[in-house]
C-alpha cells in the first residue's frame, strides 16, 4: 500500500512542505493518544477517524464502541455515521441503545471516551448546543448533546479532537453541554463524576493537556512547523504554555498510508468504484 498524494485526500488544512496536511497531523496524533487504551467510546467524525487509525497503527486490539450499540467493531473503512452497517457486521456484540448507555457506559466499562466539540473552554468544558451570534441575531443552533455529557462523565478518561481557532477555543462557552473540568480541580469529584475527565485536546496545531493544579488546558506540544505564537493566536483565552513545549513526531509513512487508505475506503461507493 503506498501513500496517496496528499492533494487527493478529502482533508482540509494546508499541506506542509513535508507532504501532509494539518488535519492529518491532528488525526495521526489523535490516534497515537489511543496507544494504551483498551476500550474506546467513539464519537462520529474526527474521533472515529482517530480511533480507526489507532486500530490500523498503534493499537490493533483497541475495542471500538459506538453509541449505536456496537461493541468491538472492526470496520475496514471509515464509517460515515455511527449507524454504519459495517459497524454492526464486524462487531463482537450489538446491544440495544439503552443497554449501551446504562450497562456499558454508565456501568463504567469504557476506558476512553473520544469526543469532538464545537466550542471548548480553558477547562475543557464543551458546547455543542447553541452559539451566541450577537445581540441582534438569533442563537445559532448546533446539533446538541448526543452522548457527550455521559461519555465525558463516565469514561475512565476523555480525549478531545477539534480544529484550533478562536471560534472553537473560547474564553467563555455560550452553553455548557458537557462538563470537562468545570471551574477547576475538584469540580468533577464534587459532582460525583466517576471518570477523570479530559486528559488531552488534540488539534491541528498541537496538543493541550490540563494542568493538574488548575485543571486548565496548557499547550504541551505543537505539531512540526507550528509556532507557539500561532497557537496563542488561535486560542480565545490567554493560553498557558508549558515550560518546555514539545514538538510532535511527524506522521510516519505508515501512519499516513493507513489514514489515507481508511479515508479512501470510506468514500461513498459510487465515488470510489
Amino acid at each position, binding site marked *: 500500500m503506498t501513500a496517496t498524494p496528499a492533494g487527493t485526500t478529502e482533508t482540509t488544512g494546508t499541506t506542509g512542505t513535508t507532504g501532509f496536511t494539518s488535519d492529518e497531523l491532528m488525526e495521526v496524533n489523535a490516534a497515537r493518544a489511543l496507544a494504551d487504551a483498551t476500550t474506546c467510546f467513539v464519537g462520529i467524525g474526527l474521533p472515529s477517524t482517530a480511533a480507526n487509525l489507532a486500530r490500523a497503527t498503534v493499537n490493533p486490539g483497541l475495542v471500538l464502541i459506538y453509541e449505536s450499540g456496537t461493541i468491538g467493531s472492526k470496520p475496514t473503512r471509515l464509517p*460515515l455515521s455511527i449507524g*454504519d452497517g459495517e459497524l454492526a457486521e464486524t462487531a463482537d456484540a450489538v446491544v440495544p441503545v439503552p443497554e449501551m448507555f446504562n450497562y456499558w457506559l454508565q456501568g463504567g466499562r469504557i476506558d476512553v471516551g473520544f469526543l469532538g466539540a464545537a466550542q471548548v473552554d480553558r477547562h475543557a468544558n464543551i458546547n455543542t448546543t447553541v452559539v451566541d451570534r450577537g445581540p441582534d441575531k438569533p442563537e445559532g443552533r448546533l446539533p446538541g448533546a448526543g452522548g457527550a455529557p455521559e461519555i465525558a462523565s463516565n469514561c475512565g478518561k476523555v480525549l478531545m479532537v477539534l480544529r484550533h481557532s478562536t471560534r472553537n477555543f473560547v474564553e467563555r462557552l455560550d452553553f455548557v453541554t*458537557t462538563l470537562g473540568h468545570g471551574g477547576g480541580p475538584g469540580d468533577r469529584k464534587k459532582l460525583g463524576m466517576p471518570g477523570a475527565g479530559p486528559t488531552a485536546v488534540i488539534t491541528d496545531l498541537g496538543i493541550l493537556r490540563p494542568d493538574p493544579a488548575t485543571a486548565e488546558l496548557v499547550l504541551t506540544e505543537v505539531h512540526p512547523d507550528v509556532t507557539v505564537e500561532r497557537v496563542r493566536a488561535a486560542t480565545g483565552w490567554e493560553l498557558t504554555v508549558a515550560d518546555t513545549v514539545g514538538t510532535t513526531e511527524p506522521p510516519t509513512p505508515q501512519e499516513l498510508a493507513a489514514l489515507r487508505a481508511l479515508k479512501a475506503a470510506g468514500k461513498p461507493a459510487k465515488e470510489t468504484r
Partner: protein
Amino acid sequence: MAPCEIDTTLVSTLSIPTLGVTMADIRSLEDAVADLVHDGDTVAMEGFTHLIPYAAAHEVIRQGITDLTLVRMTPDVIYDQLIGAGLVRKLVFSWGGNPGVGSLHRFRDAVENGWPRPLELDEHSHAGMANRYVAGASKLPFAVLRGYRGSDIPTRTDTVSTVVCPFTGEELAAVAALNPDVTVIHAQRADRAGNVQMWGLTGVQKEAALAADRVLVTVEEIVEELTPRPGGIVLPTWVIDAVSVVPGGAHPSYATGYSTRDNDFYQAWDPIARDREAFSTWIEDNVRNSEGALTR
C-alpha cells in the same frame, strides 16, 4: 347433580373485558398513516441511521398531517423534511444533524428564524432520551440515570429533574417517560399474522414501539415464516397496529440484508436543504406530487 345455570348476574358483573389486544392489520401505507397518525400527535420515528422509516414520513407529508411533536434521539434528514414542510410544532431529541455531512438546515432555519413556523425544543442527552423511552416502555413515569451533571441542558427542559436514592442518599437525574401517541418504524419483514422481525442495529426501536399507544411498521416484505436470525428481535403482532409493505421504505437509510445506505443522497441533501426554495421544490416534486421518493 345435573349441570344447571349459574348465577349469571354475579358472573357477568365480574366479567372483565380482555385488554383489547388485537393483531396487526396488514394494510396500505396510505390507509395506515391516515388511520394512525393524527394532527397534533406526538410521533416517534426511530432508527439509528439504520431502518429509518422515510416512506412513512413522506406519506405523513403527502397527507399534510400537522402540528406534530416529533420525537427521536437522532433526528436527521427525514425530520429535516417534516420540519421544513411546516408540519412540526415541537421536537424532542438529543442530537440533530445530517450524519457524516453536517447541519440540518431546515431544522436550523426553524429554530433560528421560525421558518416556516417556530419549532419548540425539548432537548436531552442520548442517555436521557434512551432512558425516557425505557420508562415509557415500562409504563413508569420516569427513569433514573447518573447524567446531565454539570450540564446546562436541564435549564432548557422541564423533563429533567432529580431524585435521591433512598438507600445511599445520592442525588441522581430523573427524566420523564416518553410515551408517543404513535411510533413508526421500518423493519426487514413480517409474517402474515403481522409479527415483525428486524435485525442489525435495532437501536431504541423496541422501546419506542412499546412506549407508544399506536405502532405502525413498514417492512421490506411479508414472509411465510420468521425464521430466527442472529441479532434478530421480534415484535409480536399484538403490540402492533398496522404493518405496511414498503420495499425500500427506509431509503436513503438502509435495511440490513436488503439495501445499503445511500450516502450520496445524504450528501446531496445538504445543498437542497440550505435553500428554502430548493427545499420546497424538492418536497413538491419528490414527495407531495410523487411517490417516487420511495423508489429513487
